[in-house]
């Protein structure tokens, strides 16, 4: 927004001027399908009878608006046809020859989020200003087709091509899988006939067992694929929290006056049947903050898959990743297909496999996101190995604040899988007193265990007294057995 454009409008002149704008016999918008469209362009002219040239101009404006809407849509700002129709009608109300008003109108009609503003401004400037200046079309016909081609910058086009390729590759892969599966089934059947002593299901089961216990670190590519499939099959449930909303029940804590009166009308004024309400319960929101720095690189891709399956299975999940800075990836993970989502994330995130500054990342989270996503008794899940290169004091302060603003703070550490692991790095040592549950996340079993823990979370607050904190640290200081 322009920083110094401030003015004080002391009277109603602004309104009055606008109100007298379209004369009363201009057709009211929304009465029929086509006329307001033509009128929207002609609003600039302000004369009621529309000449053909004005009509044409109106149509051209409408065309450009749709095109702009499309551009926004392609850039990730979701603009639907209804919004564009509304906008076209809205433009009737303002003086569209005033560039400022035109801009503000487009902005408040098409935007729905503060985060989109910068992108919108860029696109607005690009589309309505710089692009026109660069190549003003001599005749509208052929250039329009050109426009459609330049609309996607080269990098985007490349991405699109990659995306299309990847799709076909995947399809081939799946085909291949199915083929091999069929073969395996046949083999197994054949095996059954030959040798009844070793049931193939048993071997398959123990293989599964092994896979579940195996550290992600030493996974082969095939095992990774298998693990992804297993993850996708996991079902996630989060602990419930009571809400303030009531629902009718047979026996509850609060009388349901409305139904009591209705039910008992038949008895006159005697209240014979009582009905009740009680607090409704809802799953808690889950916030995942995942480390994707260099030291975690062996785990991070797989953990991303894991986060994707959680966030698709549960309603209320917010996800962030950090290396040296924090990136919110909730929107990217909304894509159904895991591979699409992961690709989308890696495109957005700038600091893959770099250094770690947990303290700073948490600071940013506390500043910008805590208030927005930690309401309603949220459970926070931090996934990191605690190799921190940032300031320990900052980390301590931020962990303290984070623990205070969430219902449960769980830290998953892939290194915890090894029985000899002791939290000795400065980062982990600093964070340890503020963690409610310190769990491993190195194999599939640990994730299943996590799932059980999340399900069990109830209303009880974990102990967060200084004594409890000292105890938590002491547990990890014991020598390895």
């Amino acid at each position, binding site marked *: 927004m322009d920083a110094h454009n401030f003015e004080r409008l002391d*009277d109603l002149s602004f309104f009055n001027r606008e109100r007298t704008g379209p004369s009363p016999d201009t057709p009211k918008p929304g009465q029929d399908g086509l006329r307001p469209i033509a009128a929207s362009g002609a609003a600039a002219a302000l004369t009621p009878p529309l000449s053909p040239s004005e009509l044409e101009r109106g149509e051209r404006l409408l065309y450009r608006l749709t095109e702009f809407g499309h551009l926004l849509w392609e850039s990730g700002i979701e603009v639907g046809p209804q919004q564009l129709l509304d906008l076209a009608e809205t433009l009737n*109300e303002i003086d569209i020859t005033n560039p400022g008003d035109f801009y503000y109108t487009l902005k408040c009609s098409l935007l*729905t989020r503060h985060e989109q503003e910068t992108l919108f401004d860029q696109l607005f400037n690009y589309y309505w200003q710089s692009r026109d200046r660069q190549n003003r079309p001599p005749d509208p016909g052929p250039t329009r087709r050109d426009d459609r081609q330049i609309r996607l910058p080269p990098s985007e086009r490349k991405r699109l091509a990659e995306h299309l390729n990847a799709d076909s590759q995947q399809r081939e892969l799946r085909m291949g899988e199915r083929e091999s599966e069929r073969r395996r089934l046949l083999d197994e059947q054949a095996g059954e006939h030959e040798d009844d002593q070793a049931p193939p299901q048993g071997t398959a089961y123990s293989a599964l067992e092994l896979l579940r216990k195996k550290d992600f670190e030493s996974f082969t590519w095939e095992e990774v694929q298998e693990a992804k499939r297993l993850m996708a099959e996991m079902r996630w449930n989060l602990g419930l929290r009571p809400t303030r909303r009531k629902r009718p029940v047979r026996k509850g804590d609060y009388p349901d006056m409305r139904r009591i009166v209705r039910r008992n009308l038949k008895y006159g004024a005697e209240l014979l049947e009582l009905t009740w309400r009680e607090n409704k319960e809802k799953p808690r929101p889950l916030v995942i903050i995942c480390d994707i720095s260099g030291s975690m690189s062996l785990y991070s891709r797989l953990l991303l898959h894991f986060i994707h399956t959680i966030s698709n299975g549960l309603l209320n999940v917010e996800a962030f990743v950090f290396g040296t800075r924090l990136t919110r990836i909730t929107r990217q993970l909304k894509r159904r297909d895991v591979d699409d989502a992961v690709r989308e994330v890696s495109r957005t995130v700038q600091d893959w496999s770099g250094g770690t500054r947990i303290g700073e990342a948490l600071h940013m989270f506390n500043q910008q996101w805590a208030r927005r996503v930690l309401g309603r008794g949220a459970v926070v899940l931090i996934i990191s190995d605690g190799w921190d290169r940032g300031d320990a004091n900052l980390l301590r302060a931020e962990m303290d604040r984070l623990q205070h603003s969430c219902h449960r703070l769980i830290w998953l550490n892939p290194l915890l899988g090894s029985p000899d692991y002791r939290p000795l790095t400065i980062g982990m040592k600093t964070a340890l007193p503020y963690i409610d549950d310190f769990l491993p996340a190195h194999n599939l079993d640990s994730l299943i265990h996590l799932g059980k823990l999340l399900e069990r979370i109830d209303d009880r607050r974990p102990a967060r007294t200084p004594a409890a904190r000292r105890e938590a640290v002491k547990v990890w200081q014991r020598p390895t057995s």
Partner: protein
Amino acid sequence: MFARRYVADRSLATAVFLALKRRKPLLLEGEPGVGKTEVAKVLADLLETRLIRLQCYEGIDISTAVYEWNYTRQMLYIRLMEASGTTRQEELKEIFGPDFLIKRPLLQAIDSANAKAPVLLIDELDRSDEEFEAYLLELLSDFQITIPEIGTIAAQEPPIVVITSNRTREIHDALRRRCLYYWIDYPTLEKEYSIVLARMPEAPEYLAKQVCAFVRELRALDLFKAPGVAETLDWIASLLALNQLELVEGTVRDTLGALLKYQDDVLKVGGSNLGKLLEKARSASL
């Protein structure tokens, strides 16, 4: 446009104007204390119409937001009826009639008895839960409410709806799409200065300038909660109550509580760099 002691820039004015013209709800977001609620108040004042305010909270439901039956009165009435021996049919009709209805804000807003479209302020929508938001969706598109016992009540003049949110929860996209969206940012130095003058005409200009400059310095710091305009006004009022004519380090330190609401922030600002901040503010206000 806002003669009533509200200083708006043209972009906000445009958004409000369009909301009025198109009869679309206006969704205002911004940090706490930048004047979101104030927009609705001033708007009602300006249009000389009623302001109906619905403060949202978790678990807000139909009986507190839309309507409720007056149960006690219904019960008493039935007793009376029984005593006088009227037939049942009439009783029933009267018991669920408008006389026994308690109108809550949303019903008040679309009541056909309104001579003039009121301003309906749905404050801090992010505090309510998804269920209520979904209900609003229906209401905001048709401006009618169905009460099973009475029938459908539709607004003759749809109210002017202002929705505010502090973003403690994301408002659903479906609702966002139906609204005009506007993000109220912290004001610029000049704008804040004119807000202070408009709101506190009794404040000396020099002090007002210094205060605005100082608050701007604070916002540039990495604070957990930066002070909003409401806090600025609050602080000036406190300084005036202490008969201060300009910012002095000691008084500033003692009154920081009007500006900063977290202990960490107070420590951060109240430390050794307070003098430096003040110096900066003084030079900026000259």
